[in-house]
């Protein structure tokens, strides 16, 4: 299988065919028994009123709750299945490789390669009981302005422990990532991440603050880099040309704060690739409980394609600017 990845992946550990077969099996299962499920929910709901009629209030409540849970389960199954089917169709159309399954293996590889990016920055409150995982991962290539770029993209899920007093709860966060293979003139690496109070304090103490000419950019992003010397700063400033600054600000405006996230919108520049992460799933849930919701339309795939196109556009513009930095 000839796909690009920034880390060495043992593809035998990812069961592409089985995962896609299981997705299709789930689709046919829900399609076949859909009316049965709906009838079941209605029967449970109706019988709850029977319990009420014979003055069995606890059973009435129990059956109401049961019908509610059945409804939520069916709804969630259809939504998650639809997401997988849309992505599968987009992947087939573009001849990309797609893995819908949850993979802790991929997370472990990527958290080692991009340790600070996928591991440390979201680890402060991360639950030790649940392992983060990658899901709905694509590998492929796209063409922009006579150039072809290898990429991979997907969802990155992690759990955070929230506690208030004696109550503890686990919250699942989903970010999406996009990694594009791009040879740049950057020595070492540097990261841009959404500005927050913690980053302001870090920058104050570690003096890792680079002021660009754009107020919007300075208010949106904080910097992080390994060597705090003037040479590194000059390198970063040479990458952040006016066009790149504008593109990154637009990326931030589109992506930041669209969903809950620990990391927010972040970008890692390296010599070999650029990594983007942003809050929320690559393809957010669509509404719909009807059986017809499972049919993937052109409109559905266009939504997915648009979301990827934003990254393709940004990556290609960055590539033009980064490779022309000698001008």
């Amino acid at each position: 299988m000839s796909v690009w990845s920034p880390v060495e992946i043992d593809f035998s550990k990812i069961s592409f065919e089985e995962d896609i077969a299981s997705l299709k099996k789930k689709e046919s299962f829900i399609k076949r028994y859909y009316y049965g499920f709906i009838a079941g929910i209605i029967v449970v709901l109706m019988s709850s009123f029977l319990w009420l009629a014979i003055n069995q209030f606890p059973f009435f409540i129990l059956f109401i709750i049961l019908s509610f849970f059945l409804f939520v389960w069916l709804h969630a199954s259809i939504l998650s299945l639809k997401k997988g089917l849309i992505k599968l169709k987009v992947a087939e159309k573009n001849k990309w490789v797609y893995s819908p399954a949850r993979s802790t293996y991929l997370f472990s590889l990527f958290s080692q390669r991009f340790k600070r990016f996928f591991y440390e920055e979201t680890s402060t409150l991360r639950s030790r009981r649940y392992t983060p995982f990658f899901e709905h991962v694509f590998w492929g290539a796209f063409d922009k302005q006579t150039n072809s770029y290898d990429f991979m993209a997907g969802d990155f899920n992690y759990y955070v422990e929230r506690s208030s007093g004696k109550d503890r709860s686990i919250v699942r966060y989903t970010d999406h990532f996009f990694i594009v293979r791009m040879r740049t003139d950057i020595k070492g690496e540097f990261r841009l991440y959404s500005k927050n109070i913690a980053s302001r304090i870090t920058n104050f103490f570690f003096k890792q603050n680079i002021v660009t000419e754009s107020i919007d950019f300075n208010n949106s992003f904080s910097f992080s880099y390994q060597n705090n010397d003037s040479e590194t700063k000059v390198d970063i400033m040479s990458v952040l040309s006016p066009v790149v600054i504008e593109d990154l600000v637009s990326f931030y405006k589109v992506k930041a704060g669209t969903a809950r996230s620990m990391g927010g919108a972040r970008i890692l520049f390296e010599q070999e690739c650029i990594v983007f992460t942003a809050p929320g799933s690559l393809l957010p849930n669509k509404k719909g409980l009807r059986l017809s919701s499972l049919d993937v339309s052109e409109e559905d795939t266009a939504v997915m394609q648009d979301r990827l196109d934003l990254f393709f556009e940004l990556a290609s513009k960055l590539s033009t600017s980064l490779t022309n930095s000698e001008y």
Partner: protein
Amino acid sequence: METVYLVFSVLAAFLLYLLFTYNSFVRLRNQVFNSFSGIDVQLKKRNDVLPNLVTIVQSYAKHEQSLFQSIAKTRSEVYSCLEKKDISTLSSQDMALSKHVTSLFAVAEGYPELQASQQFLSLQKQLVHLENQIAASRRIYNSNVTLFNSQLQIFPNNVLNKLFGFQEQNLYVLEDQS
């Protein structure tokens, strides 16, 4: 006694507010100057690349002397405006120079040998890249100026600014000379 504390607290809060407002105006104004220097850098880069492009086109299209002279004149005007930081004249000269560059490319289209020259193609690519950078620098500058001017105009900053005396900055608007 409590009244004295209260008066002092209000006074201290007001002084702190004055301090923060003044500092934020200074920061914003410096950002505006910084973003203007971004335009300055890109325009100077374009001015450095242009003579090479003119020379190579001149070797093929000898009869376009008036265009080459206009480019040289506008180029020196741009330099002079940059020295004086005269934004309103600079924007019109910048626009004129961009138009001349477009005319230069149009002239070059009439010479297939020139179009095939690697040196010409490389310079053309550089110039297109620089034009994009200049356009982005302009937008960044204008965005900063808008933010700075808005901060000066909103209440109560407009009242405080009577005390501080910060001047509103001009937007970099491309003006057509013709």
